[in-house]
């Protein structure tokens, strides 16, 4: 009954999306304005209906209703409730339903909260949002129905991939999807502004909170995904340049560029056409990401189902939306008026360089991700593009980008001089030189990329705080703090990456009980290996006593787990976080002669990578709150005047 109700809600929402698009299109023609007022309520109703459908699916998963095919294929009555709940989107159909739900709710939120944009542009925006929705409703209803019944119902479900049975599943996909789909709103705003020929500062101010919001969620989702892969896979790495990781990085790069260009548009009314273009590109990257992950074209834990029909469907949607938006852009770009001018040495100039470098990095990641697919499609040859390519091609550009980030916020809008800029940067430059000297003296033989990473991080960390220099800290606007904290986060994260890459110590041994092994500053003694059991798994657990100098010893317990639904083995690394890094211990297999494989890492300051990510997101949040408050105040002042 619940399943049928969910399906009915989904069909109704799809019908409303069609209605929303039709009314918006007809209402925008001269003389038919009568239909315009009904578009907003329809967008809200559509949001409620998809929300109900998603709630129905969550209920079915929590209740383990095995007569629903999707539940039977992914749920299991012995699973802890959190994974029943999060398992709702730990599969293809459920995750697509979540996608559509967020899309519709975002559209509803625009309908409710957006009051400053001209009515016609807003209606065009809602029409574009409905057009995106229609494609994905069709995809759900015709190619991936989450509510399909199974007759007869099996006695037990097949369970969830144990790698996904982790609190990370409850957090990582929803945040990423909020980011992906948040960019759809930026896309719809851009399409709406193109349709009504209304590209300008007001449009940029309406779009900015959505770009910021999406970007915050993308940042959090990527940070969480990176940490999840780091502790769950047991490989000790935090980023693998896996195509699925790239699928989340590409929208982030585009959104970062958009975030900066939209500021130029909102503040100085410059970069009009470019900003609209970036909004289209950013959502295109979300769609490419969805295509890569959902089509089954990739091999990874993320591809739940391999069904070529689905891949073709998403590819067709991709072509229609991106092609349509680019066509509209091509037709209307001539009517976008010239924005205001600026000097090459100015805040705008620095932001243009930021945008170019981000676009170039985006291009490099995109090429590296799609190249293997392209080559295989054309020649049938199989190849993979891995970290050596991405590090060599994207690494140097990223370092230049971060270095320029140090100068950008210290430059004036419109026109600046190089000499005073150099004066403002004197202290950070001095710090950079000192850091260079210190690293070369303390860590001779360090590779060039980590060396530059550490040095640039030191300089940029100092420079990122410089905008607060000599300012009244209490009267500094919140969004300035946001920028400072986000830029500081980049420096912190970069320092973590460089330190991890340069100073990690690794020990791989087959150890007997009682033996002691050294890794970095730690000595670990293998005391025992014992069997343990959990709710749906059994495991062997190694007990290691850890000492460091004369500090108090402590015990770590890495596990190798065997799940039985479905039968899979995973390794649970034991990670100890201390102030200057992490100790990472993995237990492997027995060699059959009383020895156990142990893999131990000491990773100095590795935690800075994710701490930086959190800082970046926090900076985004402060900017968002600051901007919204400022806008509201200006709005009220205008209303009073």
């Amino acid at each position, binding site marked *: 009954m619940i399943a049928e109700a969910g399906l009915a809600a989904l069909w109704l929402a799809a019908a409303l999306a069609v209605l929303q698009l039709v009314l918006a299109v007809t209402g925008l023609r001269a003389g038919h304005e009568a239909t315009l007022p009904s578009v907003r309520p329809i967008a809200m109703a559509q949001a409620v209906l998809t929300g109900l459908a998603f709630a129905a699916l969550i209920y079915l998963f929590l209740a383990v209703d095995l007569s629903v095919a999707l539940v039977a294929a992914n749920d299991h009555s012995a699973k802890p409730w959190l994974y029943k709940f999060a398992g709702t989107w730990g599969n293809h159909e459920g995750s697509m339903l979540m996608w559509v739900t967020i899309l519709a709710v975002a559209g509803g939120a625009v309908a409710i909260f957006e009051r400053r944009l001209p009515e016609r542009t807003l209606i065009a925006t809602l029409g574009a949002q409905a057009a995106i929705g229609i494609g994905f409703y069709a995809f759900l209803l015709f190619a991936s129905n989450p509510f399909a019944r199974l007759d007869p119902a099996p006695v037990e479900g097949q369970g969830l991939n144990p790698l996904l049975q982790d609190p990370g599943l409850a957090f990582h996909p929803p945040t990423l999807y909020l980011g992906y789909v948040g960019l759809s709103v930026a896309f719809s705003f851009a399409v709406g502004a193109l349709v009504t020929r209304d590209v300008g500062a007001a449009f940029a101010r309406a779009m900015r909170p959505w770009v910021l919001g999406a970007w915050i969620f993308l940042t959090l989702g990527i940070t969480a995904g990176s940490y999840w892969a780091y502790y769950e896979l047991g490989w000790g790495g935090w980023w693998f340049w896996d195509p699925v990781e790239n699928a989340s990085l590409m929208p982030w790069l585009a959104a970062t560029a958009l975030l900066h260009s939209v500021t130029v548009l909102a503040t100085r009314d410059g970069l009009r056409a470019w900003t609209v273009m970036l909004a289209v590109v950013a959502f295109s990257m979300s769609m490419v990401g969805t295509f890569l992950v959902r089509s089954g074209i990739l*091999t990874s834990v993320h591809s739940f189902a391999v069904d070529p029909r689905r891949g073709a469907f998403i590819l067709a949607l991709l072509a229609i939306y991106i092609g349509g938006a680019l066509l509209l852009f091509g037709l209307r770009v001539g009517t976008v008026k*010239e924005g205001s001018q600026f000097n090459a040495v100015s805040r705008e100039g620095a932001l*243009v360089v930021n945008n170019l470098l981000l676009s170039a990095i985006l291009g*490099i990641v995109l090429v*590296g991700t799609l190249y293997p697919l392209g080559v295989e499609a054309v020649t049938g040859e199989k*190849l993979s593009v891995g970290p050596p390519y991405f590090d060599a091609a994207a690494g140097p550009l990223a370092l230049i980008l971060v270095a320029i980030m140090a100068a950008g916020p210290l430059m004036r809008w419109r026109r600046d001089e190089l000499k005073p800029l150099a004066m403002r940067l004197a202290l950070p430059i001095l710090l950079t030189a000192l850091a260079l000297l210190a690293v070369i003296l303390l860590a001779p033989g360090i590779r060039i990329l980590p060396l530059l990473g550490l040095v640039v991080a030191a300089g940029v960390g100092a420079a990122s705080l410089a905008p607060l220099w000599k300012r009244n800290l209490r009267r500094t606007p919140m969004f300035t703090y946001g920028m400072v904290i986000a830029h500081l986060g980049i420096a912190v994260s970069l320092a973590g990456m460089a330190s991890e890459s340069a100073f990690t110590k690794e020990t*791989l041994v087959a150890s007997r009980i009682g033996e002691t092994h050294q890794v970095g500053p730690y000595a670990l003694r293998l005391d025992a290996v014992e069997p343990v059991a959990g709710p749906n798994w059994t495991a062997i657990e190694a007990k290691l006593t850890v000492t460091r100098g004369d500090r108090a010893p402590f015990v770590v317990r890495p596990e190798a787990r065997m799940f039985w639904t479905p039968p*899979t083995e995973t390794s649970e690394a034991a990670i100890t976080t201390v102030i200057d890094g992490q100790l990472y211990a993995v237990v492997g297999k027995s060699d059959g002669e009383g020895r156990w*494989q142990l893999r131990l890492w000491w990773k100095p300051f590795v935690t800075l990578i994710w701490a930086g990510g959190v800082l970046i997101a926090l900076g985004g949040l402060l900017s968002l709150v600051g901007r919204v408050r400022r806008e509201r105040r200006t709005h009220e002042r205008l209303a009073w005047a």
Partner: protein
Amino acid sequence: MKAKHQRLSLALLAVVALVGAALLAMSALRSQAAYFYTPTDAMRDGVEPGRAVRLGGMVAGKSIKRAPDGVTIDFLVTDGHQTVPVRFTGIVPDLFKENSGVVAEGAFQAGGGFVATNILAKHDERYMPPQIAGDMHKSKSLEP
């Protein structure tokens, strides 16, 4: 600077940056892309030693041998026609076992053996790398 000039110089700058990035990407791709070989491909085409490649196939039955250090293993990768000896030091993935699909990342040695730096195995019972699935299928169907 006139408006037209500014637009033009911006566009030029963008083109230069993107072309530069594309060139960087292409040259890095040419030297860094790791091709996928089955043992039959590798024997037929000959892979230069030291080049990063992926070798895929099945772990041959009864071929896994442990070295005395306890962390190095030797095994044979087969596709039904040819076999390649592989050496790997590290903790093998959870589902690495004999008669099961495997992809070894690494390089061929001058002597003909393969040294793996990373081993990818079938992730769970429902998952098989399409590369292997396709090739295993092919070599099976070629059998009389």
